């Protein structure tokens, strides 16, 4: 009896070990965060930004919409302008593309970003289309 449980626990340990070493070998899938093109540092410390960017964005949003404060430090535009991702055609990819800066982490964390239902996701936004209502 004792032997059997020993074998069982050894098997379990081996399995767990194998599982983790497999993960280490294969690499834990982490988001491939696009580097900023401008400068070395984000507008705030990186760890702070990872945890609190949404708070900064909504604060800036209310200030801009309601009070007309137009500083761009914590603006949505600033995020995807610094962390621009270009496609094969050398044009910035929009948030429809999973490589887009915001989507890299949001897809990973399964958090949907609503911003781009209304906002453009590329620097400069769309060009004038010339079409008429």
């Amino acid at each position, binding site marked *: 009896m004792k032997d059997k449980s020993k074998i069982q626990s050894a098997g379990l340990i081996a399995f767990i070990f194998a599982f983790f070493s497999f993960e280490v070998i294969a690499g834990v899938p982490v988001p491939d965060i696009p580097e900023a093109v401008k400068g070395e540092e984000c507008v705030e410390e990186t760890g702070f930004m990872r945890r609190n960017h949404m708070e900064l964005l909504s604060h800036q949003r209310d200030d801009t*919409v*309601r*009070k007309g*404060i137009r500083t761009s430090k914590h603006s949505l535009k600033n995020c995807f*302008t610094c962390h621009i991702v270009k496609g094969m055609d050398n044009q910035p990819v929009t948030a429809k593309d999973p490589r887009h800066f915001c989507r890299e982490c949001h897809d990973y964390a399964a958090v949907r970003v609503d911003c781009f239902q209304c906002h453009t996701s590329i620097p*400069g936004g*769309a060009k*004038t289309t010339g079409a*008429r*209502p």
Partner: protein
Amino acid sequence: MSRLPENDNKNRIDHYRRKLLGAGAALTGAATLGPGVFFTSIARAKPDAEPVSSEVRWGFLIDTNKCVDNCDKCVTACNDEFNLTGFGRPETDAQWIRTVTLRDKKTGHTTKLPLMCQHCAHPPCVDVCPTGASFKRADGIVLVDKHTCIGCRYCMIACPYKARSFVHETIENQKEYGPRGKGTVESCTLCVHRVDKGEIPACAEACPEKAILFGNMNDANSDIARRMASTASTEIRGDLRLDLGVRYQGI
């Protein structure tokens, strides 16, 4: 359009100071760059970090006598500014500004004028909004905060000027300064993105006849206030006593 915040801000403040110093010389700077090309700015560009103030009341004074028949340059300029593309359904396509022709039944005299959100000081659209999305900025500009708009469209019904549109379709061609999205209501923003930079709205800039005068109605020295003081102007449906930010001459 991509701006470096710090430098940009500094430049703007310098610009602002310079303007203050030269205020006597140029209340409204309008320099001709070439035939038909104007660079027009308003006297006061607000520093980026400064909130808008109720000392300012932005508005339009529209001279209907100057508005030419068959011209729709202001409408086109607005549509281009915000990529207001149509879906071939005139009843529901977004329309922030339109031209209206009034006909005096007795005399047959017609008057054509551009009509947009009148930026009411007592806006019915704000009164009825259940979420607080429809709001008036301190400087008199009436906007929809699309982050809180639930698309109920009460405001569209409340507005006496039919100034608001509902976005029925998924939009993908937004300008950087002009977010628009399905399920929200929108209307003339008085080109708030331009005004905050010290520029004039797209329609006023585009009008070849200069029929649309933009400015600070609260500043007695502004062109708009001086013209309002010297020439008769009126509000459309002034009987509603909404204290409009858009006034008309010649009606």
